[in-house]
């Protein structure tokens, strides 16, 4: 298991390879990406910022919980910070597990907990030039 907050583009393929194991019957990848439209407004990009030390610890806690709860060591998560263009990946979650149901359950647990707990914020850039913090 591994988790990190990084400031460079994410590589889903590398994370999928990192969790690969011949003990696993299923691997899953979740990739969060910057959407063109959010709540009816045209988005042109997003700044992600983090309280880095706490975000890294909280993310590591979540991965540790998923490892314990779903029974696989093969979970890797990276979250990106900085300015992201449309379509770029903000988070990649890779899981592999002997059993497919647990691989999918672990994937969902991690993304839902990340959304709730990890101190990361995003400021959307809109086509009209405005920039606003999301969830405020």
């Amino acid at each position, binding site marked *: 298991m591994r988790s990190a907050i990084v400031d460079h583009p994410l590589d889903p393929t590398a994370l999928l390879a990192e969790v690969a194991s011949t003990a696993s019957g299923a691997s899953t990848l979740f990739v969060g990406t910057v959407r063109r439209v959010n709540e009816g407004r045209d988005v042109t990009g997003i700044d992600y910022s983090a309280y880095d030390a706490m975000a890294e610890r909280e993310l590591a806690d979540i991965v540790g919980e998923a490892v314990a709860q779903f029974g696989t060591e093969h979970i890797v998560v990276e979250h990106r910070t900085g300015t992201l263009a449309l379509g770029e990946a903000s988070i990649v979650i890779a899981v592999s597990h002997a059993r497919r149901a647990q691989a999918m359950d672990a994937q969902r647990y991690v993304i839902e907990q990340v959304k709730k707990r990890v101190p990361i914020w995003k400021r959307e850039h809109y086509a009209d030039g405005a920039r606003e913090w999301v969830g*405020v």
Partner: protein
Amino acid sequence: MTLSVLLFASWADALGSTVQLDLPAGARVRDVLSALTERAAGKSLPKPLVAVNQRYARPDTPISATDEVAIIPPVAGG
């Protein structure tokens, strides 16, 4: 005691990324929030949580001057 508080996102935009607060000895998380809410009077800011030493803290958690205290606006990672 003088306490340095870390701010993020909309709170950092409004008050800066660090704020110094003068608080009485024995202050708790709720006192930090009260002091900061007073400074932010008139600004439209979302209700935050508070982290002490990088963990979410309750309103009655006691604070000392050496703690790392941070204001956590609603998170939006993922």
